[in-house]
């Protein structure tokens, strides 16, 4: 690859990235361990009655897809030119993700992601956007639609990039380009 476009980006420490488990529960708590392990007691009679039933009742609560979940999906994508993730480079931010979903599995839903390129003339913005789109298409149910744009005022040719990112034809064409897919595949390799 040629010289990196932004050789010296600002990097956020991994521990400072937004996660679902905030605050006290992230601490090293001795009691936390006890809660996680409730071994099934050895018993025949218990097994008879408990078979087939799921654990606790409150576990039945549905957990809707939220912006944190989307963030977790895309923040671990690698930047094409740094050994860092999009989350660490703040290309993807939790506050720039919106989920519009009624929770009804028969209704359409939409996700809006605004990306912040590390520098305003970043020519890789479209590649990053494409990577995010591929990741979301693979990771979310088909009823979801995605709008991926660069954040207002963060890129010189904002409109062009936005157009390219959300043009169905062009996205489809890009996804048939073997070499491009290879690069994206490399970017997605770090998703855990």
């Amino acid at each position: 690859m040629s010289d990196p476009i932004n050789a010296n980006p600002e990097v956020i420490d991994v521990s400072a990235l937004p996660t679902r488990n905030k605050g006290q529960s992230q601490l090293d708590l001795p009691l936390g361990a006890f809660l996680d392990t409730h071994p099934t007691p050895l018993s025949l009679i218990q097994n008879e009655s408990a078979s087939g039933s799921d654990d606790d009742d409150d576990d039945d609560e549905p957990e809707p897809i939220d912006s944190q979940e989307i963030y977790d999906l895309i923040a671990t994508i690698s930047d094409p030119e740094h050994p860092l993730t999009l989350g660490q480079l703040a290309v993807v931010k939790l506050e720039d993700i919106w989920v519009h979903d009624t929770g009804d599995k028969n209704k359409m839903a939409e996700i809006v992601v605004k990306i912040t390129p590390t520098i305003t003339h970043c020519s890789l913005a479209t590649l990053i956007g494409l990577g995010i789109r591929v990741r979301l298409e693979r990771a979310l149910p088909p009823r979801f639609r995605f709008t991926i744009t660069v954040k207002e005022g963060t890129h010189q040719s904002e409109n062009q990039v936005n157009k390219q990112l959300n043009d169905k034809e062009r996205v489809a064409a890009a996804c048939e380009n073997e070499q491009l897919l290879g690069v994206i595949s490399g970017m997605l390799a770090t998703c855990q």
Partner: protein
Amino acid sequence: MDALVNQYMAATGNAAGIADLITTDQAKLVDLVQLLGEYLVDESAKTRQTAIQCISDVLKDLPTDKLTKQQLTVICEFLSERLADEPVTGQVLDGMNAVVTMSAISSLSVKKIVDSLVGYYLPSSHVQVVRYKAYVLLRYLTENKSQSLKSTASAQEGFIKCFLTCTNGEKDPRNLLESFAINEWISNNLTVPENDVEPQFDATFCYFPITFRPPKNDPYKITADQLKVALRTALAAGKQYSKLIFPALLEKLTSSSLSVKGDTLDTIAACIANYGPEITAENWKDIWDGTKFEVLHGSEPELAGKTLTVLKRLAEELQKHGDQSQLDEYLTNVETDCMDKLKDPTNRLSTQAAQIVASVSLAGVDVAKKLTTPALSAILAVTDTQIPTLTSICEILLIFLKSSLPNVTSTPLFEFKDRVFDVLAKALLSSPESESSLRILAIKGFSAAVNITEFLSQTDTELIVRYLDDVIVNDTNTKTLQAAVDALVLIAEKPGNAGIIQNITFPALLSELPASDSDKEAKTRILFLLSVLAKVSTSKTLIEVLQVRILSHMDTVTGSTALYPTLLLQTLLSALKEQESKDNFDTTSYLKSTFPRLFKTAFDASYSGSPAVMATPQVTEAAGRILTSITRHCTVQDQVLTSLFSLFFNGTTSDIFPSATLPEKQKFNVLDTPLPCMSLLTSCFAPLSRDLELPKLHDPFVLLRSVISTVSGTADPAIRRHYLRFAGLLTNKWINTAASPQAVAFVTDLLETATLDALESAAWIIKGWLLKNDSTAFKFVDTLVGMLPGANGLVAAKSFDILLGDDELFVKQNSVVIRQLYKQRLFVSVVPKLVQGYKDVDDKVPYVVALSNIVNSVPSSIVSPALESIMSLVVDSLSVSEARVKTAGIDTILATIGQTDIVASYLDELVPSLLDAAFSSPAVSIKALQCLGAFASTVDLPKIVPFKQRIINSLTPLLDHKKRDVRRACVDTRQAYFELGINK
């Protein structure tokens, strides 16, 4: 003699015979030399070598007091001359090595040897092994003949020349270690003439820095570190080098290699310490100018640390100098360079300057007064209270607090204590929560202060504890909280602070506990506060107080769900567990404070059913664990045993269980009716040593029989479990199948009865024996296998879970007998029967369940080799509706995946089954997804690729699963398949 010599020459035989003749005066050494005469001048080098070797070997075998001074002079002369003959050098050196050990050898002879080496020895023409002999010789002389070597100036000079000759051009690591050691000895013991200083220095310093990397098959296993240390010691020993070495070393600091720089700084530090104040006084300026930039402008903390040591050493040595003006000048230099930066905390070099000042101050109180005092005055005089300034100030204060002179209570820091304290307090108390890095710095500052001996008063510590409690109660930033908890634990661990924690932190945290655990937020809060309580309870005394507090708090949470009292008990347990790892953990004193209280609660709940929450399995379980832990570590187990039996089987109270514990007006015997409070008995009984004798009134078998007959009166699984675990423990520790045929007959009857109740009871009894690898137990296991095709097949299959499953009471710490190989033995004997039986029956479910129960509890190292034979059962287990069976099947595959390629040949069956399983309960679903995902990376590509699209498509609906974890697992598995076979 003649014959022996000829024999030696012909076959390089042994010299012992010749040595014997000489020792017993039947021959003379001179004769030997004469006999060898013509060989010694033979044309063939080989012959000459053998001849000299003969003499050397004989010399080695002679007693060290045999030869006279005269004889030794002659032989030394002889050997020295021979040294001129290059091919025989190795053999001559052997001879010399033997001669120098002789007791009568004179200084003159030693000198002869030394001089001959200077004259004739040319190390570059010899191999490493020969050169090594020369070093051994010199090393021996330094260690044993130092008087001779030191005797005159010319002897000294001669030896130095000799060493320089020998070490010229040396490259071998083993030889270098010797060379460095000899060099060190020379510097420490001889006066090196002016002319020889530079050659000696060059002969050593030319190896600096060592960049040696040991070869893979180095027979001597010499490491780079060994060489570095040896060279450093040799250099540090050479005071005479001082004019040469510092410029040379400082020049090496321009290197770009971190390890070279580190080595250089270490060497400088070692030299300063060894060369002493005079030499330091001559060189400190250059060193200071040449090294300070590593701290001020360097980017490597490790190098900065090493430099700080150098700077501290300078001050230490200069302090010892008679003329203090040098020290003053040095300190003035430090001040000039650092004080400006310190006065303005926002200067980007302020913390580096602080590090220098703080490190140099470590040289002693007087130095500290000259440096730390003005530095602290300056920094504390800053009035700017903006966050960045305050942060820098705290950073600087932390540096000073961390580098306090150990065990000195009169450093300048002590004079500034109150002001330092105020700044830290201000940083912590008046900065907003979002400024976590500043608050953490303040907390770290307090921790560092706690670590300084006699720095803080009791009141200071109390205040800090209040601040920290306040952070813990009010802050929400994870890192700040963690820092506060760590600091609090540190304080609790310091001797004498238990009272403060007990009087301030305990009430502060307990009063913050929510009244009930109704919502999720309250639960998190309870969990957090109790965790902190558990962590700070770091001593016996604190746990004692914690017990009282916790147990009385139990009364206030009776209206809550089971979680709250459980967590309270777990808090106590967690603190106990932490102490368990320490030596001499004695819980005897806890017996009286805890047992009656826990028993009363449990009895009340057991009889009157209120408060109901106290009789829930979770609470009983947690209470049981505490009882087990305390009983395990108390010293009066025998009393506990007697008291337990009298209380539970007779209703008699005792010292340990006073009457107040008993429920009122109850006839009390757990063998009359099945009671939930049996958990108390089982928990206390479990850890008792098997060497104790059961009270006379209770024959183990009779007891076993009554327990089993009582348990048949209830179908409540929790209550049954308490009784049956008791039975299992009883058979394991106190009933032997060989000695108790009644017990064996009893179990046989139970198995014949074959009701659910009887089989469960039998399983627990058999478990006790099975752990001991008892043969009768294995016979019973066979009986159970035989029942699989029958009416009770499924129950028999499930009993394998009891037999092999892990139970926390059946562990070695509880004095339970557990033989290592019992699981393997059962696996090897039972599994083939299952595989065989499985083929012949229609209802295969019991076999699959039995196998899954076995596989579940047996290490995968035992399962893998048998995987091929059980694979079809495993595949079937995926279609059994019971979640546990499915999970066991998937676990079997996961545990053995990658170790064998058997899985690959079953993909046609496994993939559809797993895809089905992925749509069951969340737990099973996640397992199935993980298993499918694992195939992508472990199965050979051509075999798994055909399934790629099918797996990706079939899993799509799971992306909309209501549980987040399932969705996530599905995303990961699908991602693995999307990438399958793609070239990157």
